[in-house]
């Protein structure tokens, strides 16, 4: 008898609109504007449906272009090249043109640059410096004798967080409070250390 495969964490792919209450897949008939009653859970929800226009990509064939300007794509021999990759210089067609607002790249170079996190527009993961600054400030508050260290770290992350928040035009009020706390922690931590040194020196003097 074959052994049963062990249960694995399954990531459910997104398959389109579902009932917002029970997550049952909505068939095309149920995607409509108005009050919709889910056939599975019988729950009501208000919906507005859209019919987004399909995207059309015009790919020019080499045969269709003139003899002078016709350069074949490096990946698709039948397609006419529309541009050259900014990294490797290969001629690429409209299908291969990976442009996310930072210039045209061929798929291979795009993958390489994306894995190196060198494409600003294609990055989907980044560090949350504001949150890191907040946690550092809280740690410094709890461990007051290390306040100077944690406060400095909080200030460092806050400086990066300010840039991040400004770029996104988000409120910086929370981060300003963190900076105030961090400065107080540094001062408090330094005062505590000085007090300890003073106490130690006074103790040895006797």
């Amino acid at each position, binding site marked *: 008898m074959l052994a049963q495969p062990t249960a694995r964490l399954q990531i459910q792919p*997104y398959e*389109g*609109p*579902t009932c*917002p*209450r029970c997550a049952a897949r*909505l068939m095309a008939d149920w*995607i409509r504007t108005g009050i*919709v009653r889910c056939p599975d859970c019988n*729950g*009501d*929800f*208000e*919906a*507005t*449906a*859209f*019919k*987004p*226009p399909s*995207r059309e990509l015009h790919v020019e064939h080499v045969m269709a272009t003139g003899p002078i300007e016709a350069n074949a794509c490096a990946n698709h021999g039948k397609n006419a090249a529309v541009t050259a990759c900014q990294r490797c210089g290969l001629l690429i067609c409209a299908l291969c043109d990976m442009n996310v607002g930072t210039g045209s790249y061929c798929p291979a170079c795009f993958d390489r640059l994306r894995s190196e996190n060198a494409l*600003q*527009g294609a*990055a*989907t*993961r*980044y*560090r*949350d410096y504001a*949150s*890191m600054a907040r*946690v550092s400030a809280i740690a410094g508050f709890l461990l007051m004798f290390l306040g100077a260290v944690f406060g400095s770290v909080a200030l460092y992350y806050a400086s990066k967080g300010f840039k*991040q928040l400004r*770029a*996104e*035009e*988000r409120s910086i009020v929370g981060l300003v409070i963190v900076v105030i706390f961090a400065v107080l922690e540094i001062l408090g931590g330094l005062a505590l250390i000085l007090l300890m040194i003073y106490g130690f020196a006074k103790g040895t003097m006797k």
Partner: protein
Amino acid sequence: MTPTPRRKLGRNVGVMIRELIFETADAIEVDSREGYEISRKRVLFEDVLLVTIHRAYGVGYVVVMLLLSIVFGILAVGFQFGAHEAGAALTFAILALPFLIALIVRLVLKLDFVTVFGRRSRAVMRFAVKKRRAREVYGHICSRTREVQRSMEPPQAAPIPAEEPPLPPASE
């Protein structure tokens, strides 16, 4: 990270999920927090298929609040009438109170969900108190989507003007 100006629309905070939802010029951005890292996905306005709004209790939250209220409530009652410890009973009653209040607030106000389904991804927002805001966000997303998708439609061909009928020959 894309340094594009964006406006916060709402949040989706649950037991296992912590997301912030923003609006940019061409999409709804969903920032999912995983520790100190944020992963971002977008629901492009040009891809939106369905926008929904509904009101629900949030069963998990209600059950947890109810259980905590009952546990601390039973302890308070037990200390009061079983052990005759008024101090301990009061402490547990005070502990039970916030959970009870949270439960009542949720049962009265419920939770508003705004969900945006795109072709390849979706965004969910929860509004616990601001009901008007939920309605505003729903309307705003619908109007922005309509605007973007309308601008993508191919322009209608201009009607060909009808030829003028030939004039009758000039009589001499």
